[in-house]
C-alpha cells in the first residue's frame, strides 16, 4: 500500500511534466521557475533545519563509546572508535561520514528456528549498497557540473575519465550510472523483501527511492537512447546560473521529466528524512569526545533542583545514628 501510493505519486509527477511541456508548452515553468523555487526551498529549508539543530544546546556529553577508553597509560585506547580529543573526533566523524563506519559493523542476528540458539552472521550488504548509492550519486552530481560552466571543471573531467574508463558505447557508458540504478534498486528491493524493513517503511521511504529511480532511468535514456541535445541542456544550465534562463522547446520532453523529478527531489529534501545528510555531522553520540571525567561539560540551561540535604537527613536519623556510634554534625 505504502509502496503503491509512492509509486503512483511519482508516475503522476512524470505525467505532469510530460503534459506540462507537451500540451501546455510550459517550458519556462518546468525549465526555470520550478527549479528556482526548488533551489530556494532547498537552501531556505536546509538552512532553517541546520540552524534549528545547531541552536538547540547540547546539555550533556553523551558519546556512544565503541572502543577502549583512555585511562591508565599502559592500556591502549581506541582513538577512532572512542576518541578522547578533537583529533580523534575528527577521525571518527570522517570514518562515519565518508565510509559509514557504524553501518559497517552491521550483522545479522537470528534465532535458529525452534531452538534457543542465537546465531550471528556478518551483513555488509546494506553497507555496500549505501556506499555504492551515495558515491555514485556524488560522482553523477559532479559530472553534471559540466552543464553549468563554460569550462568544464577539472574534477568533473577527471571523474568523467575514470567513470567512462572502459570506453564502451557512443557516447561512452558511465559505470556510475548503472551502479546508481543497481544500488537504488537494491535499497528498494530490501524494503520490499525483508518483512521487518517492509513493516517499518513509510510512504516517505519509498517516495525518494522512486524519484531517484525515475531520475536515473530518464538520465540514462536521455544519454544513450534519445541522445538529448547536450548543447541545449548546457545553455539552460548556464542560463539558470546567470539568472537569464532559456528553456528551449527543442529539448526532448523526457529531459523536462528528468529535470522536474530532480526539482521535486531538491524541494522535498529539507522536509524529509533526506536531511540525514546534514544531521549526521551534528549527532552528539558521534561528534563529541569521551573525555567527560577529564574536562567538565557545561549545560547552558542548568538550573537548581530540590535536593535532600545532609542536614535534613541527619535531622531524621540522628538518634539512630548516635545510638550505633555513627558520627553526627549536631549531637
Amino acid at each position, binding site marked *: 500500500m505504502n509502496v503503491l501510493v509512492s509509486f503512483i505519486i511519482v508516475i503522476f509527477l512524470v505525467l505532469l511534466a510530460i503534459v506540462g511541456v507537451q500540451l501546455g508548452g510550459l517550458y519556462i515553468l518546468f525549465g526555470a521557475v520550478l527549479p528556482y523555487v526548488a533551489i530556494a526551498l532547498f537552501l531556505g529549508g536546509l538552512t532553517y533545519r541546520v540552524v534549528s539543530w545547531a541552536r538547540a544546546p547540547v546539555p550533556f556529553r553523551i558519546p556512544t*563509546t565503541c572502543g577502549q577508553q583512555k585511562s591508565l597509560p599502559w592500556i591502549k585506547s581506541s582513538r577512532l572508535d572512542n576518541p578522547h580529543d578533537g583529533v580523534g573526533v575528527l577521525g571518527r566523524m570522517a570514518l562515519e561520514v565518508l565510509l559509514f563506519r557504524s553501518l559497517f559493523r552491521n550483522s545479522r542476528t537470528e534465532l535458529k528456528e525452534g531452538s534457543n540458539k542465537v546465531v550471528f552472521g556478518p551483513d555488509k550488504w546494506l553497507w555496500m549498497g549505501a556506499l555504492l548509492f551515495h558515491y555514485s550519486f556524488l560522482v553523477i552530481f559532479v559530472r553534471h557540473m559540466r552543464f553549468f560552466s563554460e569550462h568544464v571543471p577539472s574534477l568533473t573531467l577527471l571523474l568523467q575519465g575514470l567513470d567512462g574508463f572502459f570506453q564502451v558505447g557512443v557516447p561512452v557508458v558511465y559505470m556510475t550510472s548503472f551502479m546508481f540504478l543497481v544500488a537504488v534498486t537494491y535499497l528498494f528491493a530490501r524494503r520490499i523483501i525483508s518483512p521487518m524493513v517492509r513493516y517499518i517503511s513509510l510512504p*516517505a521511504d519509498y517516495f525518494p527511492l522512486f524519484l531517484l529511480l525515475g531520475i536515473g532511468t530518464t538520465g540514462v535514456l536521455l544519454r544513450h537512447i534519445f541522445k538529448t541535445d547536450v548543447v541545449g541542456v548546457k545553455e539552460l544550465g548556464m542560463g539558470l546560473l546567470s539568472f537569464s534562463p532559456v528553456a528551449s522547446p527543442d529539448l526532448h520532453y523526457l529531459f523536462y521529466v528528468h529535470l522536474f523529478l530532480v526539482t521535486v527531489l531538491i524541494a522535498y529534501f529539507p522536509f524529509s528524512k533526506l536531511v540525514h545528510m546534514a544531521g549526521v555531522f551534528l549527532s552528539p553520540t558521534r561528534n563529541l569526545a569521551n573525555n567527560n571525567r577529564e574536562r567538565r561539560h557545561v549545560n547552558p540551561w542548568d538550573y537548581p533542583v530540590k535536593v535532600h540535604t545532609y542536614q535534613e537527613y541527619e535531622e531524621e536519623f540522628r538518634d539512630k545514628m548516635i545510638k550505633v556510634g555513627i558520627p553526627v554534625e549536631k549531637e
Partner: protein
Amino acid sequence: MAERKPDEMGYYDQEELVQIDYDPPRSGWMDTPVDFRPGSWIYPGKPRHLEYLGLANPRQWSPTDDDWQLPPNWKEIIFEGMRERLDKYRTFKIFMDCCVRCGACADKCHFFIGGGDPKNMPVLRAELLRSVYRRDFTTAGKLLGRFAGARELTEDVIKEWFYYFFQCTECRRCSVFCPYGIDTAEITMMGRELLNLLGLNVNWVIEPVANCFRTGNHLGIQPHGLKDTLEFFADDIEEITGIRIDPPINKKGAEILFVTPSGDFLADPGTFTCMGYMMMFHELGIDYTWSTYASEGGNFGLFTSHEMIKRLNAKIYAEAKRLGVKWILGGECGHMWRVVQQYMDTMNGPADFLEVPVSPLTGTVFENASSTKMVHIIEFVADAIRNGKLKLDPSRNDHLSVTFHDSCNPARAMGFFEEPRYVINSVCRNFHEMPENTIREQTFCCGGGAGLGTDENMEMRLRGGLPRGNAVRFVQEKYGVNQLACICAIDRATLTTVCDYWAPGVQVTGIHELLANAMVMKGETERTLNLRLEPLKEEPEGDDV
C-alpha cells in the same frame, strides 16, 4: 505442585518461549493496539512515592484499566513537554528528524531478538514518539499526515509509550550500529520524562528513587542498618580470613569517599563483591570512608528524568565536601557509571573542592578523572595489581572457569573493556570470552536494566535475557564456563535469573569477589572457605560448582 504465576521463572516453558514469530502482524504498526498481558509490564508507581518526590498526578491506577486517570489537559502537557525538550536537547531534535528507517538497528535489540514484537525494534520504538512529533511539530507532517509518518496523539498512543518505553533497558546497543548515532536510550529517556509529566511511571523505579532521596540509597537502608550490614560482612570476613575489619562510616577527613550501588549491601551475589571491596581496602591500607547519606552509587533517576538524576546524584559531591575527602572512588556498577561519566560533573560539578585523584599506593595520577574526581574501583585496583601492590594466588580460583559480561553502560558510555579483563586475568587462570558479537561495545543487556528488573516483568526479562543467556551457554558448553563475572549490581541480580533459565549451572559474580578469594592477605589464616562460605577445595560429593 502449586500453580506457577507469570512473575515466576518456572511459569515459562523454554520451548514455548523460543517459538518466536518474527513476521510482523498484518495490521500496520499504527493500527496495532498494545496488549498488556501479565509478565510483560510493571506495576505503576505508588501514589505515596510520587507525593514524596513532588511528582505529577499521584493516584492508584493500573495499565489494565481502561481509564488511566490522566490529567484533563494531558495533551497540552505532552505537547508543551515535547516543545520544551526539543528546545533543550539537540539529541532529541536530531534523532526525531534524521532516521531513514534503514533497519540496521532492528535485530540489535535483545527484546526484539527474544520476543519478535516489531515495536521492540529500536526504529519503531522511536517512531512511536516521532509519529507524534511529525504531526505536531513539522510542516511536512502537518501537510502530508500518514504519508510522512505522522499520527494523532491519543490515549492509546500514551498507553503504547508506557508499554514500550518500559520495555527498553536504555542499553544503547542499537546506537552502536546506527549510521547517525541515534541513541534509543535518549529517546526512551525523553519518552519516560513525558510520561512522568502525566504521572505514568513504574514502582520498581519510583520506589527506589523515593527511598534514595530520603535514606540515601535505593533500598531504603537507614544509617544504623547500613552499619549493621557492613559489620555482618566483617563477621563473615573474619570467619573466612581470621582478620577483623572495622569499616569506617561517615569518617571526616578520610582521603577517599567510597560509593557503591546499594544492591551490594543486600542481595547475593552482590554482597560477596561488597566483602571483596572491604578486604581489598583493608589489605591495601586505604584511608577511606563509607557514607550513609551518599550510600547509593546507582541512580534510578536516570530511569525517571534528567532532573531526578541531578536530585539524587547531588548527594555524592555534597557528602564528599562535608566529609572533606580528597577524591571519590566508585564501586562496580553499570548505570551508576553512566551517570558518573556522562552527567555528574555537568549536573553537580565543578568539584573544585576535591583534588585530582592520586593512588596513595602507587602514586599514579588518574588524569582521565581529573575533573570529575571519581575513579572506578576496577581502574584503581588494576593499577595496584600492575604495580605489584597485591599478593594474589589465582590458583585459588582454579575450580572456576570464568567469562566476562561487559555491562552496557561501562561499555558504551565509557569504553571500559581492558581494565576488568586485566583484573580477571590476574586473579583467575581460566578465562574465556563469549562470542565477539556479544561482548565489548556489542555486549548484550541482561534484560533487566533501566528499572525493568522486577519479577512481574518476568516474561520480558527472560526474553530480553535470551541473547546474553545464549552466549553464556555457548561458553558453558564449549569451555565448561561456570562463572559469569560482571561489574554491575543490576547484572548481579538479574543475570542470576537469566543464567538459571538459559544456562543453568553458571553462577554470577562480581570481580571483587574473585579478587578477594585470590588475594593473600597479611596475617590471614589458611583459607578453607570462599566468600560464599563454601569449602575452597571441592568435596567429592560437593555441589555442581
